[in-house]
């Protein structure tokens, strides 16, 4: 198990009291696995990534039964120990790649900073040359052929796709075991998205790098994804192998997202009304008790005001009192 998160709760103090933005979320990632976390905006999916990386400021309160990366308990580590582990073994790329690049440095200089000293074998005087060679190698690896012009470019001169490739290049510079990709392609046009996904899949296949992909839309996930986790309003709804989950969702939320994501479009009449969830996502001040999907769920019943426990069924798990598609149990 590469990453093991049990009952992660992240809360924040507000004028009306402490609010649990993320409520008892479980997430396990095996070595060499691509795991996709799907949730709509404001569901807390980026919070999980930030909690792993330790980006959250002190007004967020993190509690967990377990927040382990390999054999390290991330909650008890000091900041410097944590940086030591995370800096080498975990890397993260973000949604708006351009704004995460330094506007004052050229691409070549920034990538040079990402190259670790221990990767360079030569003596002190040879290092400069070696570093440059390594940067060129990294650029080639992410599919950028004209390295000369790219290395002297600044962030504002790049297209979105190119900027994301630079982010990926600096993320893979020290061969991390886990790459967290927080909606890396959500603002890109479809063709560029495919390119970035192909690149990620390639690194996954070549180095056995695990990927935690965070996505807003079920219709825009990597096809190589092995496992999916659905998160809604800070609660984990369902997790399981991609195929099984998409073919036979147990949780009404997965079903609803599948219906709305145009994923099953071939089965639908053009210009027909799409089945969708009623209402809007609850705000943090007015979170419903129990299952947070309750007020919007089509088959909600009185019992749903108690938070459902995560029930395990072979390699899948779901948090619902009245799951769908469970023929074999009867």
């Amino acid at each position, binding site marked *: 198990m590469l990453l093991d998160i049990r009952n992660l709760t992240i809360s924040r103090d507000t004028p009306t009291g402490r609010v649990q933005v993320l409520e008892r979320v479980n997430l396990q990632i095996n070595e060499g696995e691509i795991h996709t976390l799907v949730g709509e905006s404001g569901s807390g999916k980026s919070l999980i990534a930030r909690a792993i990386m330790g980006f959250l400021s002190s007004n967020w309160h993190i509690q967990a039964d377990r927040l382990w990366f390999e054999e390290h308990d991330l909650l008890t580590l000091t900041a410097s120990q944590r940086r030591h582990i995370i800096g080498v073994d975990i890397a993260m790329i973000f949604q708006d790649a351009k704004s995460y690049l330094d506007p004052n440095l050229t691409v070549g200089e920034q990538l040079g900073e990402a190259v670790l000293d221990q990767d360079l074998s030569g003596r002190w005087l040879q290092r400069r040359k070696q570093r440059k060679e390594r940067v060129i190698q990294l650029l080639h690896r992410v599919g950028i052929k004209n390295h000369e012009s790219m290395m002297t470019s600044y962030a504002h001169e790049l297209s979105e796709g190119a900027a994301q490739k630079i982010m990926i290049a600096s993320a893979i510079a020290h061969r991390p075991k886990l790459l967290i990709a927080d909606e890396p392609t959500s603002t890109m*046009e479809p063709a560029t998205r495919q390119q970035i996904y192909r690149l990620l899949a390639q690194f996954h296949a070549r180095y056995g790098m695990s990927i935690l992909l965070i996505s807003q839309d079920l219709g825009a996930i990597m096809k190589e994804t092995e496992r999916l986790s659905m998160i809604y309003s800070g609660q984990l709804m369902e997790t399981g192998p991609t195929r099984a989950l998409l073919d036979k969702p147990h949780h009404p939320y997965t079903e609803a997202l599948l219906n709305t994501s145009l994923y099953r479009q071939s089965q639908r009449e053009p210009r027909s009304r799409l089945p*969708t969830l009623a209402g809007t996502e609850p705000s943090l001040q007015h979170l419903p008790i129990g299952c947070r999907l309750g007020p919007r769920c089509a088959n909600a019943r009185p019992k749903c005001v108690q938070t459902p426990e995560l029930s395990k069924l072979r390699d899948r798990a779901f948090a619902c009192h009245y799951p769908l598609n469970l023929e074999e149990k009867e």
Partner: protein
Amino acid sequence: MKPLLEVRELGKVYPLRQSFFRRTVFTALQPTSFQLMAGKTLAIMGANGSGKSTLAGLIAGAIQPSQGEILLNGQRLQPDNYRQRAQHIRMVFQDAEASLNPHLTIGSQLEEPLLFNTGLNQSQRRERVVHTLQQVGLLAEHMVFYPHMLSTGQKQRVSIARAIILNPQLLVADEALATLDSSVRAQIINLLLDLQQDLKMSYIFISQSPEIVRHLADDVLIMKDGRIIEQGAVDTVFDDPQERYTQSLLLSELT
């Protein structure tokens, strides 16, 4: 049957560098012509920089054309006559957040087009605002809300309300669905379909998503480098794309 909208040889060039001897221009849109029937939906697809937003801006009157003309119901639209155009052609933008004024309540934002374009008195305007809010699935109480108090989906509903409050004949949606969550997107798609049925509006939809285009549109234009390279009914173009470029645009469609 006469078309609702007829675009003839419409083009846009931007001057890049002008010297005494030489002019360099950037052609954002080559002369294009097409028609749109009443109550139909036209989708425009293309990669970034293919001129699709320029075309939308020209139709909505946000950009002045360099050549060509636009006819609405056989009547020529003056490029600088905003009053004539604002009544009939309205636009919905990608980022609802940025297109609403954060300092004004929803009620007063919706009232503004009525103030400028109609002779309604205060109580009639109020009535119209309430009616339009209900049309897009919001409540009369939302009049006193400020944009930040609404969710993204509700904000996009308000932008749609602002667009339809003058009973336009044509709605231009520039990537209006691109940044929405999928469940919200489905709600907005349903809303747009209902409104089209009730009000008999025509839509021009700019989108990069083949799924949305296939679901919503009757006809599609494929644009590349400021030119229309393929056009026709959605089923014809999608099932048998002639150009390689179209194929690559459609490849991103999920199987």
